[in-house]
């Protein structure tokens, strides 16, 4: 499971880098479809998205004044900086969970039709 989590996180991170936030949706659809029979895959995918985006945030933080960015944006939005971080990660997690559910259900439907044939 840990390996799957790491692999999924890497996929989400790479696709986010390549496609932006849509990368989470694409990655989660793919992971959900590919692992549709695996128990708890949707939650693993959601967790992987959160891990992936956390890692990308760490890259940002290591590259410059992340605290200043957080406090500035929070000031603009008039919300606490921590809330902004939580919203960011929650957004990725929800996108990933929901896309993974849809991906796994679609894969299940496709597989069952093939079996029926």
């Amino acid at each position, binding site marked *: 499971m840990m390996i799957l989590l790491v692999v999924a996180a890497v996929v989400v991170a790479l696709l*986010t*880098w390549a496609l*932006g*936030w*849509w990368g989470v*949706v694409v990655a989660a659809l793919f992971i959900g479809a590919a692992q549709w029979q695996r128990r708890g895959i*949707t939650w693993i995918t959601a967790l992987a998205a959160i891990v992936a*985006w956390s890692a*990308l*945030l760490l*890259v*940002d*933080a290591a*590259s*410059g*004044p*992340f605290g*200043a*960015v957080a406090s*500035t*944006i*929070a*000031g*603009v*939005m*008039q919300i606490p900086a921590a809330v*902004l971080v939580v*919203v*960011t990660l929650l*957004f990725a997690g*929800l*996108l990933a*969970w*929901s*896309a993974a*559910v*849809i991906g796994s*259900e679609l894969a299940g439907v496709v597989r069952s039709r093939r079996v029926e044939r």
Partner: protein
Amino acid sequence: MIPRILRLAIAILVLGSGIVVGARAIGPAPALGPFVDPAHGVWSLARSASPRTRQRTRLAALGDSVSVVYDERAVPHIFARTEADAYRALGYVVARDRLFQLYAQTLAASGRLTEIGGAPALALDREMRHLGLPRAAERRTAAHADTGATMRAVRAYAEGVNAYIDAMPANALPLEFRLLGKRPPRWEPIDSYHLLNRMGWTLAFVALEHDRARAAARVGSAAAAALFPDNSPIQEPIQPTGQHAPRLDFHPLPPPGTPDSTDILLAAATDVWLPTRALARVAGDDESARWMASNNWAVAPSRSATGHALLAGDPHLDLSLPSIWYEAHLVVPGKLDVYGATIPGAPSIVIGFNRDVAWTFTNNAADVMDLYAEEVDDVRHPTRYRLDGAWSSIEQRVEKYRGKTGEAIATDTVYFTHRGPMQLVRGRWLSMRWTVLEGGRELDALMGGSRARSAAEFQDGMAASYQAPAQNMLAADRAGHITIRSVGRYPIRPGDGSGSRLFDGTKSASDWSGNVPVAQWPQAVDPAQGFLASANQQPIDPRATSVWFGGSYDPWRALRLNALLRTDSSLTVDEMRQLQTDPGSARADYFVPYFLGAVGRVAARGGAGLNPAVLTSAMRVLANWDRRYTTTNTGAVLFEAALREAAVQTWDEFAEQNDGRRVTPTSAVLAELMADSASAWWDDRSTARVEHRDDILASSLASAFLATRSRLGAPDQGGWQWGTIRFANIHHLLRIPALSALQLPVQGGPGTLAPSAGSGTHGPSWRMVVDLGPTLHAWTTYPGGQSGNPVSPRYRDRIAEWRAGQLEAVHVPLAPRELPEAQRSATLTLLPSRSRR
């Protein structure tokens, strides 16, 4: 367990909602997806907060490689082989640091703010378009030959800006674009001309005709003319008179007369054409806001401690983050070596110095805008206007305003005669002629000035090309010469030459017949007094000229500045710096004795119904005041309140009008009135008895004391400190508080060399001192920082030193190697495209 079908339904709902929230802006909130994306979204700004310390990049249009070295103050020193390449690089580095500012000011200047602000910005855009500013920019761009040196520079600058936009990494997209959900458009050469026009709009507008006409409607023409005079009653002109003291040109003011609304159309026209400017100036209770409040001065070697000419300048403008100024140094060996402040969008240093000459400007508030009453064929849909008995065609221009998503939100037709834009004012079509709309070759002038080898050459170049907005241009050179000239286009009007009236538009004889020749402009070269100074005062004593310049002028800072310069015959660089934030006030020096004298006399008469204890306390505070506006000073608060109250009580004839506006004569006119203690203007019309000067001053002081004590507590409780009530407020361009620097206590008040006006949004936008010795030395600062990125450490890093009145020594290397590694913060090498090499 949740049934699978329910789980799927929830997932579809969550994903659908997530995609909507992620992809679409909702209200003022940006689309969440691209905003929070950690790879490319707002978090990635951390990666672009500071420029990479070493970077090489290609800029296709370059003729040769350009080396850009950033010093420890983040000032780019641009070393190029051609001027065109230097301007390309300047465009590139300005875009890198100030991309959103370029965009925002272009929208503002071209009347397109609705594209980011929607319908609420429509009034601002309409003002720009009905003034004809976008049309003027188009005409100016077209008027410059494609092959001309200036247009080449403008195009090169645009190439630099666009090269940056094209190569900009996703993480470098400025925060403001992300918040607005916009992408930076390409920079066009016309945008540089929009910027110049915007400066004209900011600086070349005088409300005198407006104020006088509104006043005449209350107190008659004679009184209005005296209360809003063409000439300042206190003369300390820019062009030295040879006198060693100011001339007080005081006369008894004619009493209030019969209301005369003959010229009210003039006032209404100003309200229609320039609603935001008129409102800001007329509604402001602090007259400092009426003038741009800039200062400049230079001392000859004979009066400088270094033995060289010294020059200082601090132009005052609206304060913003990022600042209107960007500091840069351009070097093209053998051709150009100029350092100073450029305005993002202008391919030139505007204020600065080269190895031989330093220059700086203050605004000249001459009247360069006239109005004409036109006769048209159809008031509702005019197509022709009458001129010398024949009909001439009216030019029509359809102006479309677009909203945030490009949708059309309004369409106007703007009409033009040969003079300029028209407006329907109270059922009458007026046209307007304004030098700003017929601008000269200001960029030619600024570029030429950068190459000048002497102060005289600088001035001659400026006089040949520069027209608007008129500026008091001060220059000093390494040979020790100091010069000043009020450079601009001053039209010659028919009749007595005055522009303070509504002209008959049906006659071409009403038109301007030419321009005042350079020889008649206010100016001076190496005066015997050994110094030159301007502070937005009347440039030339009316006794020394027959030319009508019009305008509205502030004498107080000039009085203070000239007094200080007269008393110090060996100025050091540091003293030049200190003058820029001098807390003393000639205005306070003038009025305080009148208040104290009045209280003494009224008290001796029995107090005239005023509380003796209050009068005594107020007098004690005022008498102990050192008349300085330091942040810890406790006397300035009472004086300002008392003077404001005195103005209200004295000018009760101009009580607030229905529209919430009031006109108030300047404090210089109030000073004139002080000399006439029994003038009818002192009488409070709401009382049965007749008040004189002392009654009003004592009453004002008592009222101010009570009001201040009520608001801030007793004088000795600490609440009366100047720094607790008067602030500088430096707003972000989008007026987002978190990106602004607000409520900054600053030294200075109304009438001081660094006046802080009521809202604090106006102030010294740039400060510079230059020592023009064999080896040039200079010191500068401005309120803000080089970067426009709010998360950059360079966004507001200069504000603390600016507030403290400190300056930083600048580096002026001749070549990249002259800037040691320890003084570098980054280097950028711009390379031409491979195919060019």
